[in-house]
């Protein structure tokens, strides 16, 4: 038997090798039919857009989407045979659906920018609305007092709902006590409480009884009711993802249940817990009804959480958006824009905070 030896390329040749990605090479037929499948429906729709006055959403959904589906299917049939057709359907639909949600979000933000951008200015963020009437031009006044209010109320709500929510999740996943089904049911039921009911509840038992004024604290209580189920349920899901190996490992080192939860399980789930908090905040930050009832309104900047009624961004929007003064309406839209930016900042912050994973 003779051995076949492979004659290696010379070293020089090897050094001159260029890296390639052979799997990216596509047959010409493929490129041609795919580009046609992309271009033809787009051209038809562009033509219709120019010549007719069919509203854009209808144009996209009723004409473009079916056209694109057919075109892609034909392209798939040519390049990959019948097997490719189903694939192409799924891909087109998936891209279409994701584009749809991006477009919805973009148009929400777009409309906020169009109507509210002119209200934005440094003083809009920092000044309050004392001496400002709906007809005051945009050169004066702002929502500083509402921003402070919203932050204060959300902070109070978090202070109350995060410990309780996380503790509830710990009870469900770590303590696994006998009441777990009831607790879970209760939390689930709580997530169905309409926000206006939470506001009414606090109004009745906290404000009407004279225990506290309409205030950041009362508003925070109402928000806490709404935040709690979100925090608890998200935290529960996150704690469930922590592998049991870690719990057993800690217990095998002579740890108590409590230390296991505090030092191993919760830290392992830290990123997820932060997400739970953020989702809770995002759930409530735009809620208007509970604050109209429990926090009230104020043109001044209030920092005392207990003393007096306090403004917030959603109630500010509510109070201004329907006024018959263009500048007041612009202020409302501007506030909405600020609110959205605030949420975006919160999410980014959560990402960044969640990234540092390891501690001593």
């Amino acid at each position, binding site marked *: 038997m003779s051995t076949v030896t492979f004659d290696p390329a010379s070293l020089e040749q090897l050094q001159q090798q260029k890296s390639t990605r052979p799997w990216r090479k596509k047959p010409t037929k493929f490129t041609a039919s795919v580009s046609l499948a992309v271009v033809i429906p787009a051209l038809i729709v562009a033509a219709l857009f120019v010549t007719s006055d069919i509203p854009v959403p209808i144009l996209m959904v009723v004409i473009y989407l079916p056209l694109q589906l057919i075109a892609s299917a034909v392209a798939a049939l040519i390049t990959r045979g019948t097997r490719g057709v189903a694939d192409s359907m799924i891909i087109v639909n998936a891209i279409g659906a994701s584009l749809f949600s991006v477009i919805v979000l973009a148009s929400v933000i777009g409309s906020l920018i169009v109507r509210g951008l002119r209200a934005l200015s440094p003083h809009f963020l920092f000044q309050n609305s004392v001496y400002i009437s709906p007809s005051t031009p945009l050169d004066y006044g702002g929502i500083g007092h509402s921003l402070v209010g919203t932050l204060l109320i959300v902070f109070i709500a978090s202070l109350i709902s995060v410990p309780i929510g996380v503790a509830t999740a710990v009870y469900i996943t770590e303590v696994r006590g006998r009441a777990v089904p009831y607790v879970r049911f209760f939390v689930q039921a709580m997530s169905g409480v309409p926000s206006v009911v939470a506001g009414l509840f606090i109004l009745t038992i906290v404000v009407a009884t004279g225990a506290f004024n309409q205030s950041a604290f009362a508003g925070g209580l109402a928000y806490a009711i709404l935040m709690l189920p979100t925090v608890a349920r998200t935290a529960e899901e996150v704690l469930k993802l922590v*592998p049991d*190996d*870690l719990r*057993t*490992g*800690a*217990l*095998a*080192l*002579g*740890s*108590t249940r409590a*230390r*296991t939860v505090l*030092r*191993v399980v919760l*830290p*392992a789930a*830290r990123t997820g817990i932060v997400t739970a908090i953020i989702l809770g905040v995002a759930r409530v930050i735009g809620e208007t009804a509970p604050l109209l009832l429990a926090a009230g309104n104020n043109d001044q900047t209030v920092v005392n959480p207990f003393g007096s009624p306090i403004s917030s961004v959603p109630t500010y929007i509510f109070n201004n958006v329907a006024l018959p003064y263009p500048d007041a309406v612009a202020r409302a839209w501007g506030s909405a824009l600020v609110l959205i930016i605030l949420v975006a900042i919160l999410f980014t912050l959560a990402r960044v905070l969640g990234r540092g*994973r*390891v*501690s*001593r």
Partner: protein
Amino acid sequence: MSTTEYEGVMELDIEGIEQSALHQVGPTEMETRDLSVWFGHRKVLEGVNISFPKQTVTALIGPSGCGKSTFIRTLNRLHELIPGAALAGAVLYEGQDIYDGDVDPVHIRLKIGMVFQKPNPFPSMTIRGNVLSGLKLSGMKRDNHDDIVEQTLTAAGLWNEVKDRLGNAAGDLSGGQQQRLVIARALAVQPHVLLMDEPCSALDPASTLKIEETIRELSKEVTIIIVTHNMQQAVRVSDYTAFFLAEEGSPGHVVEQGATTEIFGNPQEQRTLDYVNGRFG
């Protein structure tokens, strides 16, 4: 098949056997009495009587599913964490039944450490933090943390590989390194007994040898109980061996136990002979 095919397996490490035979039999550290174990209504172990002399290494061998892990987890009261778990009989540690009503499982687990089959370092801690985690978790006070970290990591054969990156995340280590890390972690709380459930099944031959050296070294101070599927390993590291078996449909039990030299060199039971020679399981 002829028996000669198994002669290769029969060539055991005679030197190792002779060494272990020289080991002095000391007083008993741990012992089980008529231990039977259930998961719900299913009995998985029956009537296990084994005693573990102080500062020796005992290997638990037997086919998959015969209850070795279950057994070892009853020795440090981890078994009871599983819903539906139950047992009968007694587990004595220093003469006391660890399942007595007034015994604190936390205290038991601190004295009887464990290394699991799958490495389970704490992902939220650094390498150093992991080594010291037992101290924090159990509230144990020990000085000179730097020394503890170096000693235990050296004992686990990991020091040289990680000494420059003790502050890195434990999750960045390879599987085998993680396993040695959790061995160091178990050693840092100075257990009297160390339970090891197939500690080398995720390791390469070199790390396995390191761990085996560590086991031999540790056995001067610690009583070690190790589950292994590797017959050579059992011979290399253990003084005593217990052979578990769960026959068709019946709970697992100990078929034969005794000095490792006897179990591997001169077993009394045909089933033991068959198993250690790789004829089933």
